[in-house]
């Protein structure tokens, strides 16, 4: 019972749906309801269903290779996610470091302050940036008022806005594991280094940074993996030149109503994401082994 119910649930609502995606990715798009052929319908009976499963075409995958939109979307998703992860690290590291160095009595509150935005709506946090970044938005008003710029900057609907959105939304995911690894660090190491005449800067590069590497790796993957498949951020903050695969899939499905191609996009996305996910799990397993 304990195993059976959740097991069955996940097989029906997670595994089988994914197999259907795989199957539909080998179908042909048609103008019908549902818009693919052969249709997959259990009401046709088992033998008909078997017939439907047996015929397949690889045309959608050929289309994915031939049409530059798709490989450019995959490539640009990975590039955008990688750049955004790097910026998140640059902002998140000093924050996590300062939190771990803060007086003990502050730390619980600081930790709470990092976790709190994680609970509040993703959509709302992305939406908040539209009012700030748009042409007549708050950022331009402030920059114009203090005379840094003379013309309002175009930030909204560019890749820059997408970077800001990803960094902002996923910052807690990076800060939390990083904070955990920095907080565990033994302070006497730094004191010993200082006693032996090591400058604080050198102590940071030779002691603190190497110790925090597991936290950096975990945090970066936690930002990078979800950022690759992101839809809301590129859709609301990005422009027409922002190509991200989550959005391309959405457009294929909802606007072009090409379900088979959308399914093929999903299958390939999952295949390319398996690599970073496997690397992440490998790193986690090694970190756990080291800790125990």
């Amino acid at each position, binding site marked *: 019972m304990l195993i059976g119910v959740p097991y069955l649930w996940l097989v029906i609502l997670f595994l089988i749906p994914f197999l259907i995606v795989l199957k539909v990715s080998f179908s042909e798009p048609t103008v019908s309801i549902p818009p693919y052929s052969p249709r997959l319908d259990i009401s046709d009976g088992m033998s008909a269903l078997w017939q439907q499963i047996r015929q397949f075409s690889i045309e959608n995958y050929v289309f994915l290779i031939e049409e530059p939109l798709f490989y450019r979307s995959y490539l640009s998703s990975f590039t955008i996610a990688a750049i955004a992860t790097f910026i998140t690290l640059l902002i998140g590291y000093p*924050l996590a470091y300062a939190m771990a*160095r803060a007086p003990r009595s502050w730390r619980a509150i600081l930790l709470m302050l990092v976790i709190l935005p994680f609970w509040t709506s993703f959509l709302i946090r992305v939406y908040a940036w539209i009012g700030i970044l748009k042409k007549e938005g708050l950022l331009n008003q402030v920059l114009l008022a203090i005379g840094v710029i003379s013309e309002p900057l175009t930030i909204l609907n560019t890749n820059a806005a997408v970077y800001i959105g990803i960094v902002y939304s996923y910052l807690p995911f990076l800060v939390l594991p990083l904070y955990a690894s920095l907080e565990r660090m033994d302070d006497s190491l730094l004191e010993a280094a200082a006693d032996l005449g090591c400058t604080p800067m050198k102590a940071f590069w030779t002691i603190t940074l190497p110790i925090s590497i597991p936290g950096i790796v975990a945090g970066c993957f936690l930002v990078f993996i979800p950022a690759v498949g992101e839809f*809301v951020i590129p859709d609301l903050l990005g422009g027409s030149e922002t190509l991200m695969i989550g959005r391309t899939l959405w457009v294929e499905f909802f606007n072009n109503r090409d379900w088979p191609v959308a399914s093929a996009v999903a299958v390939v996305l999952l295949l390319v994401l398996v690599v970073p996910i496997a690397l992440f799990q490998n790193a986690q397993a090694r970190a756990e082994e080291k800790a125990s």
Partner: protein
Amino acid sequence: MKRTSWFNITSLVLGFSFLYLPILLLVIFSFNESRLVTVWGGFSTKWYSEMWQNQGLIDAAWVTLRVGLLSATIATVLGTMAALALSRHKRFAGRTLFSGMIYAPLVMPEVITGLSLLLLFVAIDFARGFWAVTLAHITFSMCFVAVVVQSRLVTFDRSLEEAASDLGCPPAKTFFVITLPVIAPAIIAGWMLAFTLSLDDLVIASFTSGPGATTLPMKIYSQVRLGVTPEINAVCTILLGLVTSGVLIASYLMRKEQQRSQFKSAAAP
């Protein structure tokens, strides 16, 4: 002794300003008199009263609330069962597949989860709408609950249960009297996580929803695409207030509970 250097203070101030300023500005501008969201025209609560007139918004809020309560509750039951199964039974047929199915949705892009569930509902002729969204939300949030509860079960001392059963306590009673109270904080945290995930989800709901089952994020999204309005700021402010106070109250209660149990164990001889 740790020194709080200027560099660290600057990092904290800048970091937390970055995290909180956008949300703060959104809240401030929900009280703006002017329809122009980014130009301050004086204090007003008119957008809040206007919001209550918007029937579409109220309906969407109801759908979201019902989906959230229902899916979070069922997901908590299923997720707790899955967590117990994984931590109690180290070997059973298909355990690798099972744990894979628990962890995969955590890293699966939402667009893929949404698409796959939609294709399932189409294949079995299941009407898209309220129930489809609820089923979808149960499926992905039960995995989050399972992970949260499992992390608590790792530290759980099985000898307590063994002692109870040695003393002749039936398994069901052991579960409710011994196991459940110990893992209760994790279950509550899991429920809250499942509820906020459901409250927050736009992508999966967009795939699985149908006519008459528009959720609040879908409504907000469709209005945001038309532009920023103070009315949406007002809706967002209320949502932020509800979630924030929920999280703060829950963490306060949990800390009190923790202190109490620490006190109890310290007092015990």
